[in-house]
């Protein structure tokens, strides 16, 4: 486990700037997404194996805690997709490395741009789901 300790410590010492941030974000997003993926396959399989259990899972997903989780998960997936595209594009066309700083910053900008409307709409769903303003 010394490897893990060293890695975490060196994250703060190694001044890799935007490239390091991009890498860390990619990995953090991956770990979060794969954890949710594992849970999500189990809860979705309840549709067949245990329909009542699926209803319980959905009730849980409607709770504020999971609403926050959703607000983290969706940007994570969007970032992982965009940054992943950057990685294979730059591997495919090595000439792009001349502009790696700009391309990485563009990746962050595109993530924010794509996430903003999605977050607003999801926030709207959440407020509607609270049922404080009628509807349902």
């Amino acid at each position, binding site marked *: 486990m010394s490897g893990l300790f060293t*890695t975490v410590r060196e994250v703060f010492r190694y001044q890799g700037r935007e490239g390091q941030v991009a890498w860390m974000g990619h990995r953090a997003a991956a770990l979060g997404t*794969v954890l949710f*993926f*594992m849970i999500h396959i189990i809860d979705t*399989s309840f*549709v*067949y194996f245990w329909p009542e259990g699926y209803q319980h899972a*959905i009730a849980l997903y409607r709770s504020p805690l999971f609403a926050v989780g959703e607000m983290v998960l969706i940007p994570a997936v969007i970032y992982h997709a965009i940054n992943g595209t950057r990685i294979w594009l730059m591997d495919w066309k090595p000439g792009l490395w001349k502009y790696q700083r700009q391309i990485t910053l563009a990746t962050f900008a595109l993530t924010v741009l794509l996430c903003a409307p999605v977050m607003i709409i999801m926030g709207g*769903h959440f407020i509607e789901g609270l049922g404080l303003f009628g509807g349902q």
Partner: protein
Amino acid sequence: MSAVQDTFARAGVQINRFESIAWRYMRLSGILLIPLVFGHLAIMHVINSVYVIDYEWVIEARWAYLGWRIYDAAMLWLAGFHGALGLRHVIKDYVHNPRWSFALSAAVAAFMVFLLILGSIALIGAPFEPVTGVPPVE
């Protein structure tokens, strides 16, 4: 043979076939997953939401149609292997003891196989009309 493989061959370096295939798989599945997952997010989280989704909705609006079952199966298998190979990569980075590294990777692989089988059985076995008597979401 690609230029890279050619260089390796001339240098007398053996290409590790598994690593090579795993690397290619991450790229290819990643590209395929982008439209699949963005479509999934748009339908499930933007157009609809967890406040709309429940047991009956999943069957009636989604799994009543074979197309959505194939769509979900493609996502399940592509993402399952993508996630498992990614986790293996992370384990290799942080766990330097070869035994622990192998044991953890094997555990990830076993759990992922279990999930893929679980998900596939659900996708194949789920009825095309909702079962009656399922209580609503509280």
